[in-house]
């Protein structure tokens, strides 16, 4: 992974031409000759997919008592997994939509897989509220269906808002992603040799011919969707945070949560982008397309988001003290010295401590180190969500009801199963669709004057 010219901050290195770019990106998909370690890694992920399926079947057939939750901590890893995955899903939309609107050219080569990552992360996240239910087969009761139940959902409940927010976000993300794929699907259709591939990409390309009209409309729709998606970056996680904020449980009832959750989402989202991008650019030798500039920028965004998160930690603690509420204060003290204290300090050291390494340019540009930091932040952010979910109810109003929950094999089976499934989907995506936007990279090459 050693980089030649480590000080280069170009968004693209070397000189390229259109056929070369199209060929290099398209051939990953069309030739299908992927390196052996790709399939080895996919197989490992597939094992985790099997674990995920087994865990889900076990959970649904036995009941939610099979994982760690108890009274008083009735929310557990299903909620923290959900928040974690939703957070990871944020970076994709931010990169695609916000950076598009802000005309940041460096987004071009990483937006596609970031969007795919968003979709898969939201898909994973969407499963967890259902798996969380005591009777998951009735999840559709949360929908305002013209129904036979004689009653509508209870609109005062944040869970209903949540349901709507996630559904909106998933829909817009999917449309945005698909919209961006259209020109590339047409390219693949045109370059495909086999009839099956031609049909497959032809149908998906929706008759894209690349005419000026197409491009003009594409531009309008794409920007419109970007404008639509941008507020969602803020709204989804804000609404997820309302699940907590709305409750009167100490540690939940805090107005800092919406911005703090969004910042946390960006932090974990960019961490996940790096976790995927660093091996990807190495494995497929696209270090000239996904350059150090990208990595460096993502790392800078991480530290920006991370500092907001750290501010969130501080203000949470400060306002617990400043409120004068004995319950909030006791909860905060118990979070720091109680049964979950080791996790709490681990979280702080990862999310606030390790993160500070990113201030250094040399660390930001050292790919193995950056990868390790990204993974550490991912772990730290999962712990943060778990801490938030469990410490409040475990130390709430009546000390007689205080208690802790534990983690069982099923908690881990489902968490790692979902991670494996996520990566399996990413692998399938790389195999089937162009992981780097062909036309935008070409556009970029032209704009940057990197054309041969």
């Amino acid at each position, binding site marked *: 992974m050693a980089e030649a010219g480590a000080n280069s901050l170009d968004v693209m290195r070397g000189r390229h031409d259109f056929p070369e770019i199209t060929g290099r990106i398209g051939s990953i998909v069309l030739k299908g000759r992927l390196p052996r370690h790709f399939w080895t890694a996919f197989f490992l992920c597939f094992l985790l997919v099997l674990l995920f399926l087994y865990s889900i079947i076990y959970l649904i057939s036995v009941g939610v008592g099979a994982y760690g939750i108890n009274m008083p901590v009735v929310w557990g890893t299903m909620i923290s997994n959900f928040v974690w995955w939703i957070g990871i899903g944020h970076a994709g939309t931010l990169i695609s939509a916000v950076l598009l609107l802000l005309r940041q050219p460096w987004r071009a080569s990483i937006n596609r897989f970031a969007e795919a990552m968003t979709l898969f992360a939201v898909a994973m996240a969407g499963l967890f509220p259902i798996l969380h239910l005591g009777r998951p087969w009735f999840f559709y009761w949360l929908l305002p269906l013209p129904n036979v139940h004689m009653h509508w959902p209870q609109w*005062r409940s944040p869970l209903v808002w949540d349901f709507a927010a996630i559904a909106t976000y998933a829909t817009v993300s999917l449309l945005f992603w698909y919209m961006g794929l259209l020109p590339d699907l047409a390219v693949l259709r045109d370059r495909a040799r086999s009839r099956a591939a031609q049909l497959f990409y032809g149908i998906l390309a929706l008759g894209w011919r690349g005419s000026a009209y197409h491009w003009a409309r594409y531009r309008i729709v794409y920007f419109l969707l970007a404008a639509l998606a941008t507020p969602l970056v803020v709204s989804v996680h804000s609404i997820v945070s309302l699940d907590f904020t709305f409750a009167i449980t100490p540690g939940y009832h805090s107005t800092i949560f919406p911005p703090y959750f969004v910042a946390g989402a960006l932090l974990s989202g960019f961490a996940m982008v790096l976790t995927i991008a660093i091996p990807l650019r190495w494995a497929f030798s696209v270090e000239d397309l996904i350059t150090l500039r990208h990595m460096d920028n993502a790392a800078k965004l991480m530290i920006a988001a991370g500092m907001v998160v750290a501010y969130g930690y501080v203000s949470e603690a400060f306002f617990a003290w400043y409120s004068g509420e004995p319950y909030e204060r006791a909860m905060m003290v118990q979070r720091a010295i109680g049964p979950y204290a080791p996790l709490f300090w681990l979280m702080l050291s990862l999310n606030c401590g390790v993160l500070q390494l990113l201030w250094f340019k040399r660390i930001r540009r050292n790919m193995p180190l950056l990868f390790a930091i990204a993974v550490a932040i991912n772990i730290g952010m999962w712990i943060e969500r778990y801490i938030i979910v469990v410490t409040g109810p475990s130390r709430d109003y009546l000390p007689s009801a205080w208690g802790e929950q534990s983690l069982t094999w099923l908690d881990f089976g489902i968490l790692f199963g979902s991670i494996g499934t996520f990566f399996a989907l990413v692998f399938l995506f790389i195999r089937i669709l162009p992981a780097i936007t062909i036309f935008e990279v070409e556009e970029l090459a032209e704009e940057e004057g990197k054309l041969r």
Partner: protein
Amino acid sequence: MSAIADDRPGPAIDIEALRKRLARGGEIWRSLDEIAGTAEFRRFVEAEFPAIAERLPAKPNRRTLLKLMGASLSLAGLAACSRAESIVPYVRQPEILIPGKPIYYATTLSSDGFGIGAIVESHEGRPTKVEGNPDHPASRGATDAVMQAAVLTLFDPDRSRTPLKDGEPASYGDFLKDMAALVSRWAASQGQGGALLVEATTSPTAAAQIDALRVRYPKLKIYRHDPLATPATEAVSRALFGSPLTPVYRFDRAEMILSLDADFLGEGPGRLAYVRDFAARRRVRDPSDRMSRLYAMESTPTITGAAADHRLAIKPSEVEAVAAGLNAALTGEAGDSRSPIDQVWMTALVDDLRAAGRNALVISGAHQGAFVQAAALSANAKLGALGNTVGLIEPPDALQVDGDVAALCEAIGDGGIDSVVVLGANPLHTAPAGLDAHKAFSSLKLLVHYGLYRDETAFLAHWHVPAAHELESWSDIRAYDGTRSLVQPLIKPLYDGKTTHELLAVLGGQFQTDPLALVRQHWAALDDDAWKKALRDGIVPDSAAKPVPVTMPSNLGGLSPAANATDGIDIRFVPDPWLRDGRFANASWLQELPRPLTKIVWGNAALISPATAERLKIENGRVINVASNGTSVDAPAWIVSGHPDETVTLSFGFGRKAGSVAALSEGHDAFLLRSAAEWMATGAAITPRENSARVISTQHHQAMEGRAIVRHASLEAFRRDPRFVRKDAPPSPKESLYPDWPYDREAWAMAIDLSACIGCMACVSACQAENNIATVGPEECERGHEMHWLRVDRYYAGPLDAPETLFQPVPCMHCEKAPCEVVCPVNATVHTHDGLNAQVYNRCIGTRYCSQNCPYKVRRFNFLEHQSFDKDEAGPEQGVHNPNVSVRSRGVMEKCTYCVQRISAKRIQAQIENRDIADGEVVTACQQACPTQAITFGDRNRKDAKVVREKSAPQNYALLEELNTRPRTSYLGKISNPNGRLAKPGEATDG
């Protein structure tokens, strides 16, 4: 007749002799055996018609034979139909039975042999709920936690269902056949070699039957085995007054009470009555109200000590010294310098007792030795209380016996006894460790065991006969004050179990008896009307024992304190409050009911004090080896604040593996350490082991963390500031975003008096029985998945070694602005028109947001499928369910409903009668069970409702009111009455 019992094969039939007899003509015969009068034939007759067999002449005549054989042929066919049940609906409705409407019967349940009156609810012939009988002196309308489980043990699938001969199923006829042999042998030998082992009983019928057996078999020995017996009470009255007497206390007259290691609120047959009177004397609603004062010195933490105004923990071996010191102080002698009691304390106590005079009451623990009991009686006599607050009556459980199980084992060892009939007791589990009961009992020629379960003794027995449950039986019983009452069955015996009286009748040679007739004939003095009235009322009127006038000898009958060598650790044995000696070990409700002070479920632990734990460097759950008298037991330690130092408390009832529920539980068998029938042992040693064992407790935090949860004050502080509960309390918010609910009709509300609550857990048990609450087992309890809708929180305040113990029952608060209601996405928890916070099970999808948002954490979630819905899996235990309450499936939330089914029933009744629901008409299960009447329930919209009066008391407060939840359940702050001269530990903290 003795030939019958002979197991040897009979002699071959002498064909030649038969030919000669038949040649004379005239004789009709069916088989060669019959005509020969062989042993085989006799056995056949005995098995089928034991009653007749006994009357059979050695040589049957033709007439008898014909009758017998004719009956045998017709009965052979009938026998197959005897258990047939008709499943068609009633063609002609029985007069009082309306499907869907429960019927209530008065009966009496036994508690360690003494009766406590009960009213049992029966749905279509299926008893489902036990309530107290208000007319019965030992119940006064209340029940305890154990009584509630009577319906559960009735439907216990593990109950013994068939007689067993050498462990193999056999018919009752076979059993009667063998009993006929025994009876004929005893008849011949006057009972030589025979013994009867009975447990504690107060049944007049049984006593009469046993007396009749004595007359019939003069050499028959009667032994009594009651592992929880307290023989010293009888011994001391013999020594003092020359005759066995037992004390009955009058707490309604007592102003100043001293408990010398007596757990009168939690133990003893009169506890429910005592609790009621005790609480009534401490009900303060107005600064001018008076209140009794309780000093407690105890050798293990009990709920009595928790209720005391002053409590001292003393080593069991020091109680005698304290009693001696008290006596000395009362007579004005100089106090013993060795007294473990602080002199200031003793002076204050003695002054208080003297001031109360005849309204003082000194109670000694029934388990205490003769000296302490004598000292207590003497103190009462000196104060003039004897005859006022203490009466002495002839013990209702008096039974002339030849000894206890130790004497029986000795007699067996001597070869004097070869046949033993065990009636109900389980000596192989409960016999003292010093006794090799197993060896003694296995050397018997015949061991008959009669009991509800195939327990340890049944496994060894040659014959085991299933007993009828007390809800299946006809019997009679006496209460703590001697009141006689009848036991009537609520249901036909499920497994053809027999009553004790039937078994006693069999031993008396009456093989075919009617269980009702056996009791009825003892009560021949009652005419049919009086009998019916006694059945209906649940008591025989005016049958209480009259106090015997006594004069106290001055020298304590020669009793003196034993020289107390207090080196080493003292062991204090206690019965488990729910499982007693282990007899209820198979009742899952009781296994899972938290013990009042430790909150331990599904097991027991060795309780030690914090200081002892510190000295031994052990922590909760560490296994310790307790050794005494050459035997030792390994048990996990559990540190209990307020436990006397250098003392370990071990409870009986656990360590049993007989029964599927009992086998789930953990814990040690303390009987293994008990060398005789004693309740304490000295000179024991504790050796910590390396390993730990699981002790499951349902409450993990004991301190209030400085929060105003249980608000409490002394009586003086209350008089100074009646609204002490408001002191330092933040003002409760008045505004809310949501509009107030309108209530046109009722608005239900509850008030719980924390001064009255003694933490006895009867309410929790009653709630479980009423509301079909699942038990989840030890694994799930350990994970915090237990389901009780109502919990009794126990907090400690003050110093670690002598804390104040506070109880607080926490049901659903039914908040007016309920946090749970707004967060449920599917409207599964909603506010009703009468103010309840209702949970709609079939609408719930299990997001658990409601529980997350409940500040009281009173909601319970079905994490797993805790109750079986599979028809094929359904066992008899399904019979215990209340048909008016849904059984919840997994994945749904549940919680206290204020017994909405009871409210609905009364509302329907009121609507039919076109009237309003009267105050006090709706009684919740917890309220009904509560022996102290701490819980009041009613309609807040009625000005005259009792609950409104309670809530208008100055010490009324709402839990966590600063959260603006506006609970409908409110608390009356705890008021205690400490002596101002004694600084009370913990005073002014946490208040």
